[in-house]
């Protein structure tokens, strides 16, 4: 597979690898890694444990120079993937140095809610890294196992597509500017709502009590319940400060998770909010960043009449707290 001459080596390149079966996966990734290593480029692979094992075997003696991270942990909440890439790029950036990454955030077992957030994540990579450091991110998509609509969306969120041994620009790429456009994909309505509360600044104490009560009803572990309370409180605080001074909380129980939704009349127009590590300035916003690292899934929608944020906390025991891993 030869690199496209159309792409400048001084830019971020976001490319989808559409593969069928293990052989195409290996053929699309191993030479990509080897080319990077031989050019002296740092390489980070964020994949499933199974694929990491396979790549280690296929790379043989070259494997020592490649960094690996488990996507099931890094990307359990898809909003935590961009910070991990950002860490890698920032740590390795040097004048004239390019970098490479492989990241497969979408697999068949992803829930429908997670899938939509993964697709948003893929688009936001263009906003986060477009026109920034020169690195090449290859995102494998399993064509056999994923819905054709998922593959179509991959063609819209990636500037380049590699398939059947050839690389080319994607005709349907939505462009760097449109990648950060307000996200308004509809959210499914819950079957029944367990709690509802219209709140203003003086109702935060009641709001925390309502969340606590529902967390107990959902049998969340006490520490997870406390994390959910602080996350919901922060999002509600955003509504009070930036969303017209008040909002509405709804809570419902799903088979695998407790979901808290905050709606307000504000206009959410910072697509990367919650995906960039807070600056050292104490005044810098931290609420969405915290929610992304405490909750299992965070959905944000910018609608014509306001903003919706949903926080999911899984009932089942979940992985550890997803603090951005140190990548050295």
């Amino acid at each position, binding site marked *: 597979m030869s690199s496209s001459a159309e792409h400048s080596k001084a830019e971020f390149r976001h490319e989808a690898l559409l593969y069928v079966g293990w052989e195409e996966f290996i053929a699309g990734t191993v030479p990509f890694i080897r080319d990077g290593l031989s050019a002296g480029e740092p390489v980070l692979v964020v994949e499933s444990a199974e694929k990491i094992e396979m790549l280690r075997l296929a790379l043989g003696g070259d494997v020592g120079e490649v960094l690996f991270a488990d996507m099931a942990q890094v990307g359990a909440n898809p909003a935590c993937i961009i910070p991990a890439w950002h860490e890698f790029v920032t740590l390795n950036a040097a004048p004239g140095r390019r970098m490479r990454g492989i990241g497969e955030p979408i697999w068949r077992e992803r829930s429908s809610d997670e899938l939509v957030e993964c697709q948003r994540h893929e688009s936001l990579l263009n906003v986060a890294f477009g026109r920034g450091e020169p690195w090449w991110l290859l995102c494998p998509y399993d064509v056999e196992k994923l819905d054709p609509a998922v593959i179509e969306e991959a063609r819209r969120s990636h500037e380049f597509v590699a398939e059947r041994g050839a690389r080319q620009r994607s005709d349907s790429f939505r462009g760097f500017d449109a990648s950060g456009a307000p996200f308004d994909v509809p959210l499914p309505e819950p079957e029944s709502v367990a709690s509802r509360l219209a709140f203003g*600044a*003086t109702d*935060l*104490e009641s709001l*925390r009590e309502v969340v606590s009560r529902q967390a107990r009803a959902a049998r969340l572990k006490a*520490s997870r319940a*406390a*994390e959910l*309370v*602080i996350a919901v*409180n*922060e999002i509600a*605080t955003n509504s*009070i*400060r930036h969303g017209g001074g008040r909002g509405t909380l709804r809570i419902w129980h799903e088979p695998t998770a407790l979901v808290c939704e905050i709606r307000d009349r504000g206009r959410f127009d910072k697509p990367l909010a919650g995906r960039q*590590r*807070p600056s*050292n300035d*104490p*005044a810098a916003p*931290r*609420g969405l*960043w*915290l929610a992304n*690292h*405490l909750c299992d899934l965070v959905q944000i929608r910018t609608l014509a009449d306001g903003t919706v944020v949903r926080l999911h906390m899984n009932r089942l025991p979940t992985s550890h*707290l997803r*603090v951005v891993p140190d990548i050295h």
Partner: protein
Amino acid sequence: MGIADRSRDFWTAGWEGRISIDDLVDAFMGGGTVYADKQLVVTRTLAPIGLRFSGEIDINNCGAVARCLSAIAADEVDVHLDISSLLFCDISGIRAFVEAAQRREKGRLMLHGLPELLQTVMRVTGWADLPNLHVCDCKGGSA
């Protein structure tokens, strides 16, 4: 929970849980309530010099917390904050502690009894390991 209940719980916990010379000194030497609202009581402590927070901090009272912190002591001494009875503290509250610590040039802000959740929040939000904000690993109390 009203302020009276909170205060009673707090003082009960204080006397039954850790009867110390410091509590006695505070009581007799002028330690007292410096701020109270329906969800938070802030008490001055004199040995060591500092404040004791009991209740909940959010955007409704984080400004008052900041004012309490700026008025507490000269820059030369360490200030001890007993937050073992703090039931809830949001980011605006932690921000008040962080900003108070950053304003100090010599003395440190010592946090006693920091709940595990707040330790997690401070780590995730990048507020761990600040030079003038010291998290004491004692189990609470300001001794």
